[in-house]
């Protein structure tokens, strides 16, 4: 009997984030009958969280290493600006769009590589480095754009990225899905992913066991830069323009979602799906509060309270599970699951 109860508890623990989302869904569905729990509404939630989701797919990598990337907003602005400028200079051609996207993504990757190299080789705290370089990058965007708005309202190949729907699903959601699958596969089903967790968990031990820590770090920041750049291109397509301060402040929301999703800022613990859960939670709250007609001035307050409650529930369940491990002498649910798989 005791064992049966334990497995239910373990099950609840394992799916705690989904349960929190489900609880929130049930609340909003009850409060907004026929409005919240619809396909079109979930489509709009996914659409509005797609930019944050894209950045999260990359920014989770350095956080899992115990680092941080606060340049995601700035890199998005830079890549969007470069992409738009190339499109304008090409005379709004499809070739210009392809070239612009490649250049934008390339700039993002380059930015990530530079950050990774500095973090890996010079041991500068990532927080300080990326805090400073985000200013440098925003400055670079201002120089690049001449502090002017770059409007790109054609060709369709570009504007469709942000606005078109395929099978009733907005294109940015597909872009997010593809990026999520790539990042998920890298983190969970590749040697590189295991190295990330290993370095994040214990840098010295990883080094001694032969892992190239520097290369792992550089690649993690490169992923972050690349995903931020993709988000920037999607953003500039959504708005049909590049602004020198585009995505300003996004890094705070991205990091908040990652932390809410249970990824440890010390590194080595947490999952990409958890981070995406954090983003979904925030997106769902925004959507639910708006649909309920709650005045904008109360949104931040209510969101803050609910996020604290969600994190507290998550932490409490983790604490309870560790207690169960000691009292019952059972394995930790994660370890047990791993053992079962073997």
């Amino acid at each position, binding site marked *: 009997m005791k064992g049966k109860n334990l497995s239910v508890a373990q099950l609840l623990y394992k799916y705690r984030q989904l349960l929190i989302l489900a609880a929130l869904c049930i609340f909003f569905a009850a409060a907004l009958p026929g409005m919240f729990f619809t396909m079109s509404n979930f489509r*709009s939630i996914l659409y*509005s969280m797609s930019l944050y989701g894209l950045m999260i797919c990359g920014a989770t990598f350095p956080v899992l290493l115990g680092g941080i990337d606060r340049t995601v907003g700035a890199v998005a602005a830079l890549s969007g600006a470069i992409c738009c400028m190339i499109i304008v200079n090409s005379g709004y051609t499809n070739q210009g769009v392809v070239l612009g996207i490649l250049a934008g993504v390339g700039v993002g990757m380059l930015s990530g590589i530079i950050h990774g190299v500095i973090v890996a080789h010079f041991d500068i705290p990532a927080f300080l480095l990326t805090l400073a370089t985000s200013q440098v990058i925003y400055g670079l965007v*201002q120089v690049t754009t001449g502090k002017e708005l770059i409007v790109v*309202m054609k060709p369709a190949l570009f504007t469709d990225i942000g606005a*078109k729907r395929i099978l009733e699903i907005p294109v940015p959601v597909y872009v997010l899905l593809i990026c999520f699958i790539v990042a998920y596969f890298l983190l969970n089903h590749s040697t590189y992913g295991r190295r990330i967790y290993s370095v994040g968990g214990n840098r010295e031990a990883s080094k001694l066991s032969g892992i190239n820590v520097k290369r792992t770090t550089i690649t993690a920041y490169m992923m972050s830069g690349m995903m931020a750049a993709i988000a920037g291109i999607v953003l500039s397509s959504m*708005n049909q*323009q590049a602004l*020198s301060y585009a995505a300003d402040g996004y890094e705070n929301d991205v990091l908040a979602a990652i932390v809410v999703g249970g990824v440890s800022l010390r590194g080595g613990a947490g999952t990409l799906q958890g981070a995406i859960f954090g983003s979904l939670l925030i997106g769902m709250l925004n959507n639910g509060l*708006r649909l309920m007609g709650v005045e*904008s001035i109360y949104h931040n307050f209510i969101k803050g309270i609910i996020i604290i409650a969600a994190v507290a529930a998550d932490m409490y369940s983790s604490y309870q599970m560790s207690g169960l491990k000691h009292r019952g002498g059972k394995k930790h649910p994660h370890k047990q699951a791993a053992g079962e798989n073997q």
Partner: protein
Amino acid sequence: MKKIIALMLIMLLAFSFAACGGSDNGGGSGSDGSQAEGIFRDPKKNPYSDELKIAWIPSDAPAANCVAWGAGIERELSYWSNVTFNTFDGERDAEKQSSIIQDLIVQEYDAIILQPYVSSTVAVAVEDAEAAGIPVICINIDADSPHSALVAMTDYEAGYAIGVEMAESVGGEGNFVVIQATPGATRGENLEEGFQAAIANYPGITILDEQTGEWNSEKANAVMTDFLTKYDSIDGVFCHNDQMAEGAATAVQTAGRLGEMSIWGANGEAKALEYIEQGLMTGTVYTDCYDQGATAARLAMMFIGGNLDTSQFTQTLQIKMPPIVVTSENVASITEDMRW
């Protein structure tokens, strides 16, 4: 003898001053007279020949309207080779704007043209600049302390005009939603007040919902998407600026409901005018920002060369730019050189 004559002259002068002072205090127009005397001073410089330094402090230099204001100021001042013109970006930080003003006081600038990010935060710095003899001309948003002048877009009137246009377009009956500015923004509040005053004349109009888009295109897009989910019938959407109207228009277009409602913004930036031409937006209220910037520059020159002590002003002088309601019918009248 000479000493006695000198003493008599001094006494005569002293008596004359005392008599003048007495008549000011005792006369019926005493208070007006002292104020008039207090606000005059000797002009410090000739603005058209002496070396001058004039600063422009926008709240957010890259924003389209700030770029246009800056271009208008520069265009006007470039006629005068004696004027040095510098731009200092406030970077959407009122504290930073205040510290820039304090630096400019130390550097003895001759005039400051300012677009405050937060009216109250810059008030002390503006007061200090005026006390130091530097006229401060605000653009669009006023500082909370009295100063030389304000050159503003119309906001209440623009909101009112949009309200009337939207209500008339649906025959006085319909459902509207509003995407608001960041809560607390003065321009947003004034636009809203004007809009609501106009709508109050049409009892058949219902405001279904109001949410903030924080001046931001993609946030307005998300808000509009939620409005479209929530309401089956929306006849009009009013956004407190063009950026948000563009975001809302994209959301409406994506949802395939473009023909169902009118979409209005405010400011009249070039991209919004293009959206109107393409049928994505219904209208906006256009302001000639180049002219607005140039007007501020002319006022700065006037105050530098004038004999008014603007630090004694108890009220800020104000110029309002004319609002031009733009729809598909007259958008072509806003020519390329007027677009910003």
